[in-house]
Structures are given as structure tokens and as C-alpha cells.
């Protein structure tokens, strides 16, 4: 059934497509295959629609959100855009606290949906956005901060949606690879997979930014999302802008998938695992599913898709791309 009463019903259930050209062994008795879960097919074009819908619904059910309320959220972009759409359709205001070093497309989209943006300094990246949002929440006690880093509904959306969809579409799944930001995708889908298919390995790819974004005053200002539980993961890769860009371009060139930069980082981790398996043992098979978190549209202005890789990586330095 592909008819829905509202855009708010038309999310999730995204396609899982094979990557025959990038997979180390697509055919044969023991294939090592890569599969892309196209989360850019959600209403606002990113996987964050799942978390946004789930967090709003949970807050409504708890009575925290009532018509006319204002939602406050620290976000580097996609969660904000998802929340802005949901807020518009459900009758809420939205204030996003966003680092100033995010792409112009994200700002334009948020403004178009009617969200208010409060910029936090580039130095400190999302860390600073979280700290700023917490301060603003104290000053505005009537605003509702859904707080994606610690809201169980974020992970639950993936426990109930992303995880079951993966296993339904690919019962032979051996590895699940996703980005690690709020950690909601991996904690939710990862837990579901651990319960239903205990041998599945959950692999995280996190962005490695320039020095500016790690600009803490001391180590104790560091941040680990409240949702994070490292026992759900099998391994975790830190991926540079250069490698993320390289893989983003390979995805277009070989498989025709136009994805955002964070997807390149996720593919980089997926390929590291796939190549390791394929090189080690010709008798081992693997089905590795990874998340295409969003499309490339919101990153065109960063220059990620033009010029040499080195030039593009330099242009991306100091910007948040996940």
C-alpha cells in the first residue's frame, strides 16, 4: 500500500538496494555483498524523519507537547529539518540551535519550514550547540526540548522501524553499518538485530572533523550521548573528510547513488569490513547493509562534488557534514 492520509504517515519502509559494482564478491556461492538502505527517501530527505516523528509522538502521548507549544532542539541540520516539517503539520513552533559552520542549504530549508535558528559558535561544533540549547532551555522553561541525544524515542524509532525492515528485506544480514551521531540509529536498530539475529555485527562510522570542532577547553567538557551504550557495537571507525568524500563519489560513479557526505563515511567503514572478509577467506559469505543517511542535495554548496578530491576535502575542512 503506497497511499497515505498525510505526509506524516509516509515515512520509513525505505528501499534496500544492492551494490553489485562496489561489493567485493557479488556472485558465487560465498558472496560478500553490500546493500544500501535509502533513507533519503523519507519525507524531508533524511533518516532523521524517523526520530523526529517518534520523539514528537512520544512527547504528545506524555502530554509534554500541546498545540501551540514551542520545540527547542540542538541540531547540525537534518533533525532540525525533520522537526520543522513535523512541527508545521502538528501546529508547533520550532527553535533550532545550530553550529554556524553548517551548509547554507540546511539554513534555507529550516527557514522555509518556518523554524527559527539560533547560531552557536563554530568552535566546539555540535558540542557547543548542545551546551547552548541547554542554557536556552533553562531560560525558557515553557519550551519543550526533545533532546535527540538522550530521548529514548529516537532509538525506539529504529528498534521498531529500521531494524525490522532490514531483517525482513535481508534475512541473511551479517553486518549493519550506520553513522554515529546521536547514536539513535545504531542503538535502536542494533539492539533489535542483536535480539533477533545475535550474530549480526553492528558497525559505527563517526565523522572526524577538523581541529576547530574539537575545540574544548578541557577534556572534561567532552560529550557522550546519553543514549550511547557501547555494548551494542562490534566496532567503531573514525572517518576523515577525505575518505568520506572519496567514497561519496565512488557511490555515484559506480552505483549511481547521489548521497550526502556522511554516507561516504558509512560506506568507508562498510568497505573496510567487506574487504577484510573477502581478503581473509574465500569461503566466508557476508551481507553488509549500510545506511544512506541523506541525499547529496544539501551539500552542493560545500563544493563536495566538484574539483579534485583534495580541493573538495580542503573546502570541507571546518564544516560539519554529518
Amino acid at each position, binding site marked *: 500500500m503506497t497511499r497515505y492520509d498525510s505526509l506524516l504517515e509516509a515515512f520509513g519502509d525505505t528501499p534496500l538496494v544492492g551494490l553489485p559494482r562496489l561489493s567485493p564478491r557479488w556472485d558465487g556461492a560465498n558472496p560478500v555483498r553490500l546493500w544500501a538502505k535509502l533513507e533519503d527517501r523519507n519525507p524531508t530527505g533524511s533518516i532523521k524523519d524517523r526520530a523526529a516523528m517518534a520523539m514528537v509522538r512520544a512527547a504528545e502521548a506524555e502530554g509534554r507537547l500541546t498545540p501551540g507549544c514551542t520545540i527547542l532542539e540542538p541540531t547540525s541540520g537534518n533533525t532540525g529539518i525533520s522537526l520543522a516539517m513535523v512541527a508545521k503539520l502538528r501546529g508547533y513552533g520550532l527553535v533550532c540551535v545550530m553550529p554556524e559552520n553548517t551548509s547554507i542549504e540546511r539554513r534555507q530549508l529550516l527557514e522555509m519550514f518556518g523554524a527559527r535558528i539560533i547560531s552557536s559558535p563554530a568552535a*566546539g561544533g555540535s558540542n557547543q*550547540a548542545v551546551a547552548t540549547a541547554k542554557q536556552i532551555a533553562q531560560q525558557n522553561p515553557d519550551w519543550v526540548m526533545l533532546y535527540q541525544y538522550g530521548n529514548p524515542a529516537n532509538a525506539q524509532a529504529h528498534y521498531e522501524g529500521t531494524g525490522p525492515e532490514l531483517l525482513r528485506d535481508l534475512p541473511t544480514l551479517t553486518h549493519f553499518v550506520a553513522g554515529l551521531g546521536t*547514536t539513535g540509529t545504531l542503538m535502536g536498530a542494533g539492539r533489535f538485530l542483536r535480539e533477533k539475529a545475535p550474530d549480526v555485527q553492528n558497525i559505527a562510522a563517526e*565523522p572526524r572533523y577538523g581541529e576547530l*570542532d*574539537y575545540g574544548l577547553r578541557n577534556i572534561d567538557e*567532552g560529550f557522550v550521548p546519553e543514549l550511547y551504550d557501547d555494548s551494542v557495537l562490534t*566496532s*567503531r571507525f573514525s572517518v576523515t573528510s577525505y575518505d568520506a568524500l572519496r567514497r561519496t563519489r565512488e557511490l555515484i560513479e559506480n552505483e549511481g547513488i547521489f548521497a550526502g557526505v556522511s554516507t561516504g563515511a558509512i560506506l568507508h567503514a562498510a568497505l573496510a569490513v567487506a574487504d577484510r572478509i573477502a581478503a581473509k577467506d574465500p569461503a566466508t559469505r557476508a551481507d553488509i547493509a549500510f545506511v544512506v543517511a541523506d541525499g547529496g542535495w544539501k551539500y552542493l554548496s560545500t563544493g563536495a562534488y566538484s574539483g579534485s578530491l583534495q580541493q573538495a576535502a580542503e573546502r570541507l575542512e571546518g564544516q560539519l557534514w554529518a
Partner: protein
Amino acid sequence: MAIEVKIPTILRTYTDGAKSVDAKGDTLSALIDDIDGSHPGLKGRLITDDGALHRFVNIYVNDEDVRFTGSLDTELKDGDVVTVLPAVAGG
């Protein structure tokens, strides 16, 4: 044998501002001891009093988080690159 260790801005007070230092060790634990010999105090910022990796410090060997490869017992070989980063918010 030398292993390159990348130091984040916040800890460069211990390395006279150097972005990376060379060190030796068959395991991460031995490597950190070696660094602490040449750059005293650094170990105390990476490892807590009870011998665990600091909660807000992430260490990667060739881009892979050591918490999933044996933590401080992670084995090292010549040419590995070790990256130290503070844990910060993403997403």
C-alpha cells in the same frame, strides 16, 4: 620501530605544541607509557586512576576505536597510526 601518535589541540600543552609525536610499544598501554616518559603528564589525561581509558577520550588505531579492539591491550605494529581525540557531540 616508531608509531605516529596524533595529539588533539587540547592536549598539546604536554607536547610543546606538537601535533604528533613518535613513540614505541607493542601494545597501546606500552605506547602510552613510552609517551609519558618523553611527555610527562599526558598519560594522566588519557587514563583514569583505576587504569581505564578516560570516558571523554577516544583513541583510534588506524581509524578504528580501540575500545572494540582490546582497549589498552590493543596490539600495535610498525607503521600504525594512533589518533587521540576528545569525545564530542555529532548528529
